[in-house]
């Protein structure tokens, strides 16, 4: 698989959290970044995988990719487009 065309500025693992702390934690991590930087969110399959990406999109951020990771969870890459 080709390397990402962007750098990951920070990574946050929310696999051991439950809704709504999943998105709250991921959102707080993105808030620390500058506009244009990319956050990688490691999240569990199921409910977090279905809802966290869409919640970022609803907040006006750009979802770049979502890929299955080696541990069976997912890596979501989000680019910060807006400050809250």
């Amino acid at each position: 698989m080709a390397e990402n065309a962007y750098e990951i500025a920070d990574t946050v693992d929310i696999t051991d959290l439950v809704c709504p702390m999943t998105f709250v934690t991921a959102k707080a991590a993105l808030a620390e970044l500058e506009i244009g930087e990319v956050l990688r969110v490691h999240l569990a399959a199921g409910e977090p995988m279905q809802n966290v990406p869409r919640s970022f999109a609803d907040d006006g951020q750009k979802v770049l990719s979502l890929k299955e990771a080696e541990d069976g969870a997912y890596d979501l890459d989000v680019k910060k487009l807006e400050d809250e």
Partner: protein
Amino acid sequence: MAKIDNAALKKGGFMAQKQKGFYSLRLHITAGHLDSRQLIGVSKVADTFGHGYIHLTSRQAIEIPFINVEDADAVKAMLAEYGVEPGCCGARVRTVTGCQNNCLKAEENDLGIKGGRKVQWKPDACIHCGICSKVCKPGAITDDGKRIVVDYTKCVSCGKCSQKCPVASWNYQTVYNLTFGGLFGNHITKGRKLLPPVESDEQLLAVADATIQWYDDHAVAGDRFKFCLDREGWESFVPVVRKAYDEAAPEGCPKADSVEVEPAAPAAQ
């Protein structure tokens, strides 16, 4: 005292209780919504004329029990002050409500109407994240990493794919999924799908009118739609409702006979 006409009272939403002289009054409530002023009116009537409580019905309505038949006019007047009307009961056309998640069990109604989304994948924005194929419960979506293919024979128009997509890579149109001849109660029966999704409000009304007209032409007193269909023959009804569907079809809508008539589900035990 004049003889009480229970049938007439029932028609107007007053249902006789086993306690002599008392009626439970069913209210006319659209789609399960009451505003706060209407709620105050309901509360006042329950306090003034009833026993100070209400009952929530399975169709998202309200009944006020223990109304004395002699207070019927005063009750109606008080309700009217708050913008509430009595409902109806018995053999009448009643509205049902249902979203695509179907908590209200659309298929168990004589004419079941369930909202939905007719979805279409648009390639431009797609990042092939896999969410749509994973949230699709009937497994109608396959994603090979380049193209997403929807098997519309499996799609139930729930719209989850478009709802969960993080990059807005789906177009959708609001549709209605209809089922016919459902029943709840002791002869519980799942209504049958006879048409593709209905694509406009006008088309929905045309199909509903044709259904009610056919029932009106064929039913005996107190007939439930399912029993009427079983007796008169579904083959007499299907062409009628399909004609109404096709005649009111918006542009691009599939032909009514592009879906099979769903076979009857096995009878409940």
